[in-house]
Structures are given as C-alpha cells and as structure tokens.
C-alpha cells in the first residue's frame, strides 16, 4: 500500500508547529479571552501576552520591540513594506512572488539579475541604482535554493543613494541567527510558519523613523500601522518560536546532498558556490520532470517540492531558477529538499535510497535521458 508518511523534507514550504510553541499558545486560545485593546484585566492579560511576544521577536532579530508590527504573515509583511511611496524601486530576479508580484504593479522598477549561484552582488545593485531610487527590496535568503545574500553590503549601497532597504527574511530566522542591527536594513519581513509557529502570523520590522502608512484601516492597532484586533494566539506562538534555540540541521543536509550525489549520476546542486541556508539543497536531476519525481517520492512516503509550492499548478518554471541561468527544461527538473528539526539521519538515509530508485525509474522511461 501507499505509505503514510515516512518523512517531511519540505520545511521551506512550511514547518510543523513545535510542541512547546503549541503549549505556549494554548492559554491564549483558552484562558486569555480578552481583547488586547480592552481596559479590563482580561484585556490587559492579552495585551501582556502580545507585548511579551513582541519582545521575544525583537530579541531574536536584534531590534527594538517598538519596531515590530505583527501581520497575518510574510506576504502581508512584504505588501506592507512595499507600499512605501517610491519614485524608483530596485529588486532582484529571485524574489518570492509576494515581493515580485507586489512590485510588478509599480511603474518604475529595476530588476537585478543574480550570478549563477543566485547571489546579488553589491556591484550589480550599484549599477541599477539611480538618484531617484527610493526603495530597494532584496531577499535575505532564497526559498528555492537557499542562497544567503550579502544583505549588509547591499543595504549600504542602498543607503549611499538615500534609498530605504527592505529584505524578505521569511526563510531565515528559523534557520540562522539574524542581527538586524548588523544587517542595517530598514524593513524586514518574518513569517511564523517557516519557524515552527502556525500559519497566519508574521511580522514586519520597521526601523524607527521610517514613516509607514497602514494598508488596512479600522483601528489604531500596531501603532497605527495595521488595523484589526491582534491575532493573540498567533502572536504568542511567534514569540515562543522566536525564543526557541536554533536547531542546526547542516550536517544532515550535507549528508543528504552527498548521499544523493553519490547515488545518482547527473545530479547538480544549485547555488552550491554561495553561502546557503543550512537546511536547504536544490538538486537538478537531468532528464526528468521534477513534477513526476515529487509525486513518485510522495508515493514512497517523502514530502519534497519542485519549484516553489505557491506556484504549483502553474505551467511556468520557477523564475528564480531561470534567473540563475537554467533553461526551462533544466528548471523543471529541479527538486528542493528542505530540512527541519524533526528530521533524523535514518530519514535522510531512507530518502537517499528513495531518490536513487525513483530517479533511476524515471530516467529509464525518459526519452530525453540517455
């Protein structure tokens, strides 16, 4: 029979809620019934929970609690940040659709191409800057192949030109230490469900002094930047997730990568020449469709993804993979494996075996692979 389920290797799509995060948020669903805006002590208790979480998130990111605006998730955080007025915007060709499609609605946007490893160099950014550039948005780490950008250097270039710098950081705080002070960014997007909090909660860091108008109206919540009663359980969970120690899966990722490369010929790691997220590897398997491999692996009990999960159902291969120089066919033969805290060495070894047999089977049937 079809197994249900051996192991989950798609943590860049979303992560399971950590048991201690769930335990932390449960009182906010059950006991603390108040509205944080209410005067009574039930409300005060909810308010305390929200502000404790704000301090936890700020501590994780290296910023002031007052610089944290809670949102419904990474997409809203990106939309809010990118609603800033700007005459000219510079972004990269490997952004998540939450940034790319938001900026596509603007009139004057320059898109900077990455190098083959997916890196945006400060020189490439500088070449795209103009005197009237008011905003730069370049992600901290890519969701598909994991390249970590030299954000501090990029932010410095933006500031030279008097532009604000936003970074979509949703993939990072759950996997690596983040120090927003050192990075020097002005706006930074965070997503709860990429760091073992539930879906539906996120945050935007807004550096003190950045004048950001709200996108939705109906109250003075979040210092007037985001109307709507706070998602107290979600906020508490995000705070609890931010307070957890980092769990290093780099050794498991390296074993997975080495095991697959040893077992499967014509497999190439994408972005291998640049600093990468410690949990991510994206491997291109020549001569097959990633879509088929994802299904074949799912039926063997392993969750992985091809392209970004949000674009499944779409025909076009991932723009980010095209941007690092792959052809359409090559981009469609890429598989992303993203690890998390729950993965074990046994799971990694089992996945290596499954990938080996599934790829061999698909290639045997492939008319294009010889």
């Amino acid at each position: 029979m079809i197994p249900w389920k051996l192991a989950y290797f798609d943590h860049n799509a979303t992560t399971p809620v950590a048991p201690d995060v769930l335990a932390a948020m449960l009182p906010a669903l059950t006991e603390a019934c108040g509205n944080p805006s209410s005067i009574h002590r039930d409300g005060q208790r909810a308010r305390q929970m929200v502000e404790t979480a704000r301090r936890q998130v700020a501590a994780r990111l290296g910023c002031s609690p007052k610089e944290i605006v809670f949102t419904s998730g990474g997409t809203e955080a990106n939309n809010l940040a990118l609603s800033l007025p700007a005459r000219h915007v510079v972004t990269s060709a490997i952004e998540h659709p939450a940034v790319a499609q938001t900026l596509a609605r603007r009139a004057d946007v320059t898109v900077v191409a990455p190098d083959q490893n997916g890196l945006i160099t400060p020189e490439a950014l500088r070449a795209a800057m103009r005197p009237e550039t008011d905003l730069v948005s370049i992600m901290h780490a890519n969701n598909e192949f994991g390249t970590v950008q030299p954000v501090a250097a990029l932010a410095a270039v933006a500031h030279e030109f008097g532009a604000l710098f936003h970074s979509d950081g949703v993939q990072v705080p759950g996997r690596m230490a983040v120090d927003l002070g050192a990075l020097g960014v002005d706006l930074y997007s965070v997503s709860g469900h990429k760091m073992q909090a539930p879906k539906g909660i996120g945050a935007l860091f807004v550096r003190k002094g950045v004048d950001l108008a709200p996108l939705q109206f109906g109250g003075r919540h979040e210092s007037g930047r985001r109307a709507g009663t706070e998602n107290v359980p979600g906020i508490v969970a995000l705070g609890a997730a931010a307070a957890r120690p980092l769990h290093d899966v780099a050794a498991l990722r390296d074993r997975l990568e080495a095991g697959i490369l040893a077992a499967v010929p014509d497999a190439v790691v994408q972005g291998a020449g640049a600093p990468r997220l410690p949990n991510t590897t994206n491997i291109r398997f020549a001569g097959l469709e990633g879509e088929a491999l994802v299904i074949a692996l799912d039926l063997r009990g392993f969750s992985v993804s091809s392209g970004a999960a949000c674009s499944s159902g779409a025909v076009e291969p991932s723009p980010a993979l095209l941007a690092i120089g792959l052809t359409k066919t090559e981009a469609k033969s890429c598989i992303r494996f993203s690890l998390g805290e729950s993965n074990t060495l046994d799971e990694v070894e089992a996945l290596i075996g499954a990938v080996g047999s599934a790829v061999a089977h698909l290639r045997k049937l492939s008319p294009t692979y010889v």
Partner: protein
Amino acid sequence: MSNGLIAVAMSGGVDSSAVAALLKREGQNIVGMTMQLWNQRRLPELATETSSGRCCSIDDVYDARYVSQFLGIPYYVVNFEDQFEQHVVRPFVDDYLQGRTPIPCTLCNNFIKFETFLEMAAGIGAEKIATGHYARVSFDEASGRYQLRRAVDSTKDQTYFLLGLTQAQLAKTLFPLGEMLKTETRELAREAGLPVAEKQDSQEICFVPNGDYAAFIAAYAKEQGMAVPAGGGEIVTQSGEVVGRHAGFHNYTVGQRRGLGVAAPEPLYVIATEPASNRVTVGGPDELLTTRMAVRDMNWISIAEPAEPIRAQVGRRPVGSGVRPAAARRYPGPRGRCLRRRPGAGRRVDCVASGETAWNIG
C-alpha cells in the same frame, strides 16, 4: 515499487469519479490525477457568464480533489498545458484554417491522455491507468493482440474517440465503465455517496467555450499572431454561381446545413470550405455523396496490418450519431486508400469532410 498501483484520470465528472470509487471498492491501490490541459484565463474575450462545462476549470479540479478526499486516495494535478496546446489545440486551429474538419478529442487521446499521461503515471510508479471512457479492452489470445470493443452502453460508446490507441497503450489501460450502463454509473456514484453524483455531463470540445469554434479559432489565431481568417466571402455552388455571402469560412464545416442564410428550393449543405479563395461551396444533398475516400495514419487494433485488400464497414462518426457506416473495400497502399460504395439513395446526408476520422467498425 510494484504494488499494482493504478492512476485514475479524474476530470471531476461523474464518470471518472465513479471509476475511482469502483476501483477503491475493489481494494485496488489507486491514485487520482487531474490533467491541467488548458488555462481558462487565456483568450479572455471568450469568457461568458455561463461558460460551464469547460475543461480544466477551477470547479472541475475542485470536484476531483473533493472526490479524492472523499475516497481517501492520494490526488495530484499534473500540468500538460504545453503538450495539449502543441498536439491538440494548435493542430485543431491549423486544420480548421485549412478547410479541414479535425476531431481534437482523438488527438487528445492519442497524444495526451494515453501518451503523456500514461508516461507520467508510469513515472510515478503506476502500472496501469484507468479512465472513465465507455469502451472495453480485451486481450485476444489467438492473435496476441488487445482489442478495443464497444461499450455495453451503446448510447455512450466512446470507442470512436479511442481509435488511435496503440497496442502498448491498450495494454496499460483500464476502462471500468465499459461494462456498465450510464444509469448504472450514476447509481454507483449515488450509492457511494460521491459529491458529484448529480453533476451534469460535459458536452462539446472541452477547450472551446459554449461550442463556438469560430470564436475560439479567431481568438487563438489573433493571440498567436496567425493569419486571422478574412471576414466575409462568397458562397458558391459547384458550378461557380454566387448564391450568397458568408462571415468567414471558418464558421462552416462540411455537411453543415443550418446557418447558411441562403434561400434555395432544396436544402443546401456545405460541401467544401476553401481558405485560399475564402469561398464556401454549397450544394444539394446528392453532391455530398461520394464513393471514394482516401485515409491516412491507419491504426490497426484487433488485427495486424493486412497485406491484401479487405472488406470493411467504414464509419466516420461515433456509433449512434445517425450516420450509417458504409461497406467498403480497403486497398493497402501508401495512403491507405479506401474505396466506398455509394450508399443507397435516401434523405441522409453522407458527406466526407477532409480531415475527419474514419474507422472500421466491422
């Protein structure tokens, strides 16, 4: 991974949903898959309020997913839009613009459902595929060949659309509904409690909204930068007499009687459409009759290609569509020429449109 896995092609309709329910009930190891073949957001000028029953709509995927959830089977949407356009939509439009009358469903079956989909199914580890077609497949020990047989429900028989299937394709295909009446399929769906048990059957060519070929062809040609059919032209008789004007030859198919807008003592039918001259030729029913027909791309199913001439019953329409098959003799040759007897005189229009699909149903 050999576990007898069967991939069920699920359109979201009652037939393919019933197939999944039936195989699941038999205890088979199955996965549901929906082929995304056409982006309905393309050609927005064709969108209407009532564009229901269109292929690959969000509603159909929703229904297929719901049925899969209901049955507790894995379910995947696979995207074959590129292949579908290349092998089905583009040839359909090209043929039409050249005055032929193509049948996209046979192309889709030959190149997509029983080729691309079969490959995908094999790739994910399935040993067979199952579809909701009304047809039967059986293996004939004597000849060592798979046979395609008409469905038990003659009113729903779809073998006509499957006539391009090769032996290799038939060997890996299950048509569980071939033994059932449509009413039994509905009953099965109701009994199983399927959420689509009362869903209406889809009609027409799936990617053409509301059956309006001409509008689709014009919109697609425009999108692709192809030569858009010229607007008006002459309607002529075979002797060259101009009897009226038409609104674009691609609005007409051979054998068509309605919508000509020409007054004549006897009913007139379209005999040919000529893209070069932008003319539509019309004539009386007798002028549609023919005794000869050239066929190509022969597919031999229950017998291997014969060396000698054979007698055959040749049809050009699905069984039960009101056009009788004609007895014919086939002469092998590079073009697979097929000689037809003139059918008995009658009121029935028996036209041969270039580009049609002929089959031996003897």
